[in-house]
C-alpha cells in the first residue's frame, strides 16, 4: 500500500503534468486521431462527395506500391547517414569545445550559425554552391586534383543523397552540440576534480564519469535526432524543386506532402503518416529501453 507521502507526491506529479496533457489533447491528440481516422477512408480533398470508408485498403495498397517502398529506402538511407554523423559529430565537437579553455563561446556561436540562417535563404545559398559552376565543384576539383569535373551534386542519385545529408548535417550540428554542451555543463566540476586528484587520466575520466552521467543526454540526442531526421522535409523538397531527380531522395515526408497536396489523396497520405508515426514510436521506445539506468544521479 502506498504511503501517505507517496500518494501526495503522486498527486503532485499529476499536477505538474496535467496542463500539458490538457493542451495536447486539443492541439495534438485530436489532429493525430483525425489522421488515424482519415487513413481509413478514400478521400479526395476537393471532392464534395462524402469520403468512402475502405477499412485498411490504403495500407494494403501502400505495401504493394513501388513508390512507397522507394520512399522507405530513401528515408532509411538518409536517416542512417544523418543520424550517425550527427550523433558522433555533435558529441565529439561538444567535448572538443568544452575542453577548450579559450574561445569556447566563439566556437559554439560559429557552429550554431547555420541555424541562424532562415531555411529559405540557406536553400538558396546551397543551391548556388552546388550548382555545377559553383563553389562545390570548384573546391572538390581543387581538393581531388581534378579539373573541370562536374561532381553532379544534384544529378547523380548517390551524390544527391550525399548532398542532402551534408546540408542537413551542416544545419543541425550546432543544434545537437548545444544539447550536449548543456549536458556537460550540468556535470559538477567537483566530481571531475576529485577524479583528477585521485590520479585518473583524461580518457578514464571520460569513460567512467562523464559518459555515464551524460547518458540521459545521449539518449535525448539519439531520440531527437532520429525523429528529426525521419521527419526531414524541406531539404529534399527544395532539392527536387530545383532540378534534382526525386527518386533517390523521395523520403516519406515528401511522399506524404505530394500525395496530399499534389494528388489530393488525403486518405492515402494519412496512412503513410500513420506508418511513419508508428515506426518512430517503435524506434524511440527501443532507444529509451536501451538507454535505461536513468536513475543516475550525483551522490
Amino acid at each position: 500500500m502506498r504511503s501517505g507521502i507517496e500518494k501526495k507526491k503522486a498527486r503532485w506529479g499529476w499536477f505538474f503534468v496535467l496542463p500539458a496533457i490538457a493542451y495536447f489533447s486539443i492541439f495534438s491528440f485530436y489532429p493525430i486521431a483525425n489522421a488515424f481516422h482519415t487513413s481509413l477512408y478514400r478521400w479526395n480533398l476537393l471532392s464534395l462527395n462524402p469520403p468512402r470508408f475502405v477499412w485498411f485498403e490504403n495500407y494494403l495498397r501502400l505495401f504493394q506500391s513501388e513508390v512507397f517502398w522507394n520512399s522507405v529506402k530513401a528515408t532509411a538511407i538518409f536517416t542512417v547517414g544523418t543520424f550517425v554523423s550527427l550523433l558522433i559529430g555533435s558529441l565529439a565537437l561538444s567535448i572538443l569545445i568544452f575542453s577548450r579553455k579559450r574561445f569556447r563561446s566563439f566556437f559554439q556561436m560559429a557552429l550554431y550559425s547555420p541555424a541562424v540562417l532562415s531555411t529559405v535563404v540557406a536553400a538558396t545559398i546551397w543551391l548556388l554552391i552546388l550548382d555545377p559552376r559553383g563553389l562545390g565543384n570548384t573546391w572538390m576539383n581543387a581538393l581531388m586534383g581534378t579539373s573541370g569535373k562536374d561532381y553532379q551534386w544534384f544529378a547523380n542519385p548517390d551524390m544527391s543523397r550525399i548532398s542532402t545529408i551534408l546540408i542537413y548535417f551542416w544545419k543541425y550540428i550546432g543544434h545537437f552540440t548545444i544539447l550536449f554542451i548543456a549536458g556537460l555543463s550540468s556535470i559538477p566540476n567537483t566530481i571531475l576534480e576529485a577524479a583528477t586528484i585521485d590520479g585518473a587520466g583524461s580518457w578514464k575520466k571520460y569513460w567512467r564519469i562523464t559518459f555515464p552521467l551524460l547518458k540521459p543526454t545521449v539518449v535525448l540526442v539519439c531520440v531527437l535526432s532520429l525523429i528529426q531526421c525521419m521527419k526531414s522535409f524541406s531539404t529534399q523538397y527544395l532539392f527536387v524543386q530545383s532540378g534534382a531527380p526525386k527518386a533517390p531522395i523521395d523520403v516519406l515526408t515528401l511522399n506524404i506532402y505530394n500525395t496530399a497536396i499534389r494528388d489530393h489523396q488525403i486518405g492515402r497520405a494519412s496512412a503513410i503518416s500513420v506508418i511513419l508515426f508508428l515506426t518512430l514510436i517503435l524506434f524511440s521506445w527501443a532507444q529509451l529501453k536501451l538507454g535505461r539506468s536513468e536513475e543516475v544521479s550525483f551522490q
Partner: protein
Amino acid sequence: MKLKGLFFVGILLICSIFAASTIELTVWTHEDPNRTLLEDRYIEEFQKLHPEVSIKRVTYPSAKIRETVLTAFSAGKGPDIFNMEVQDEYPYIVNQRVAPVNPIAMGYKNVEEIYDAYLEGTLNPVSYQGKLYGVPLEITNWCIFVNKRYTNALGMDFDNNYPKTWEALMEIADQLTVRNGEIITRRGFDFRYPYYLTFFIPMVEQLGGYLLNEDGTEAIINEKAWIDVLTFMKEWGPSGRNLGSPTYTAARKNWNKDDGSIVMCESGLYQILRLKSENPDLFHSDDWMIIPWPTFENAVNPVKGNYYGHYYMVNAQSSSEKQEWAWKLIAYMLQHTNEYFEQVGLIQPTYELMDSAVFKEFPFANVFMNDMSQAGCVLLHQAGPRLEELIREAVESVMLSGVSPENAVKTLKSKATEVLEDY
C-alpha cells in the same frame, strides 16, 4: 446593472445589423508587386462605387498558393475569389468547387458574348461540360529569347537567318556553348525544366505522339515519337553533347542579366517587361530578339509550345449574393486589359487588347501571338501533376542516369497507365 447590459446588447445588435449588411469579399492571389499596386487601386475605386461591399485582398507566394487554397477549401473556408495556374485550378472545376460565370453580373448579355470577347480557344481550359467557370487573368506561351551579342560575335546573323528547327537549334547551341572540362560555363540554350507538360509534350506531338488517347484511358501513344524526343534530350544532356541539364540554374533567371552564362532561353512575353526594368541597357539596344518556337525537321504536326494561364474563379460555396458581387468585381478589374498589359506585362487574350495600339507596338508581340494561334493549352487532367512527374522522371533518367530511351518509355507507359487507373 441590467439596464447597462440591455444597452450593450442593443448596441451590439445594431452593429451586427450594420455589419451583416456589408458584403465582405476575400480575394486570394499570388504575389506580384506591380499587379498588387494596380488591383489595390481598382479595389479602392470599386469600394467607393459600392460602399456596401468591403474587399480584402490577400497575396501568397506563387509557389505556395496551391497549398493555402487547397487547405482553405478542404476546411470549407475557401476565399470568394482566387486564381492559380490553370492546371492547379482544374480539379476545382471538376469537383464543382467553383461556380459558373455570371454574365449578367459581369455586364454581358449572355455567356456567348463572353466567348466572343476573348480569343478563340482561350476559354476552353475553363469550359467544362458546357459551362464556363472562369475568366483569364493572364495567358502565357513561350518563345525563344535570343541575346544577339553572343550570336553576332560568332558571325551568326539571326535577323536574316535564325534556327527554325530543333536540330538546327542544337547545332547553334553547340557552337555557342563554352565549357570548363565537363562543367558548362555558358549554355547556348536550355529548356525550361521541369515544366514538361508545357514544353516537352508539344515536342512529342510534333512527331505525332500523344500523352493520352481520345477517351483518356491509355497513356503514351505512338511510342516511337516518344523515343525520338527522349533520344534528342539524351543527346542534349551531360552524357551526349553536354549542352545543358536540369541541374543548372534556370536559363530564364540569368538571361536578363546578360552575364554570359546563357544565350537563349524559353520564356513568355512578361519577361520583356522585366528585361526593361532589370537591364534597360540591353532592352533599349538592338541586341536581342524573339524567335518562334522551333519544330522538328520531320514534324507531322507543327504545334507550338503549350500555353498556360491564370483564371479568376469564384467559390461555389459562397452565398449567391457574394458570388454575384464577386463576378462584378472581377469584371471591374479585368476591364482594364491595357493597364494590365502595360504596367504588369500580363496578356489577357481579349480582342480589345490584341487590337489596341499599345499591344501592336509592343516589341515582338506578334511573334508570341503567332505561336499562340498554333498552340494548345497545357494538359488539364486531375492526374496532370502526377503525369508531369513521371515524364520528368523519364527525361531525367535518360539525361542524367544513363537509362536508354526505349526503357524509359516502357517504364513511363506502365507507370502512367497505373496512375490513370486511379481516375
